[in-house]
């Protein structure tokens, strides 16, 4: 019998569609437009990547302009939730934009050993795997 890891559903949200357009059209210089402004300011779901190696899972989330102390990371029932606020001071005074992103995390995580680092606008959450889910080399005698 083979165990196949459940793949997270890949639903194209509006933000993703925007991103595809950006990828396709990114090299053209359109200059600022109202469309641009309105569309991007509503991006409250930051992009997230999920990686793994032998020892850990890694979640990476882009949060440019967010202060470290404004980020909340929570793991509950195998769902990692990152939320917080981006504060910016503009002409009219302080503006706050809240964001929220949830990621389903594969099984076999040591919940008490999760670490998060934030650098240059990217949050990296390291989720150590439990010993049993790490690949092991078994010596043949």
């Amino acid at each position, binding site marked *: 019998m083979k165990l196949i890891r459940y793949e997270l559903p890949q639903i194209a949200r509006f933000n993703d569609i925007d991103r595809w357009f950006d990828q396709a059209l990114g090299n053209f210089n359109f200059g600022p437009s109202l469309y641009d402004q309105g569309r991007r300011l509503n991006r409250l779901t930051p992009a997230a990547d999920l990686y793994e*190696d032998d020892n850990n899972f890694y979640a990476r989330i*882009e949060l440019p302009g967010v*202060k470290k102390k404004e980020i909340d990371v929570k793991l509950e029932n195998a769902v990692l939730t990152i939320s917080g606020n981006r504060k910016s001071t503009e002409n009219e005074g302080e503006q706050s934009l809240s964001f929220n992103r949830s990621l389903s995390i594969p099984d076999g995580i040591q919940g008490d050993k999760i670490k998060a680092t934030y650098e240059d606008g990217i949050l990296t959450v390291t989720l150590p795997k439990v010993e049993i889910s790490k690949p092991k080399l078994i010596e043949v005698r």
Partner: protein
Amino acid sequence: MTTALQKDKSGTVAESTRQVNYIRPYYEVDEGEDSYDIRIFLPGVNKGGVDLSLEGDTLEITGTRTQKTPETWKTIRREQQFEDFQLQLQLNVKIDGGKITAKIEDGVLGLILSKAEEIKPKSITVN
């Protein structure tokens, strides 16, 4: 002679394999009384990865990602782009090129472009 030719060739190769795909970053512009305040979102870029150049009325900003994903990491799901950033701003107003200040913090590059003296608002006193 041969050496010179080889050198030339290797130079051409380096030129053609150089990364040419950039993504245009999101940015915001605010106009103040005597300056423009620009914020460019460059996640994963630190101070050393920013290159600014002003040529004529084009301000070019290139952000090279300094935070790379280690090669040992296997991708399970990916939404973020990995290309570097490039933004060309056409300045249709006169700015004081010598007075550009730049600061990068938490992946956001803040630029302050001072307006040139001649376009600053002036108040004229009536005698």
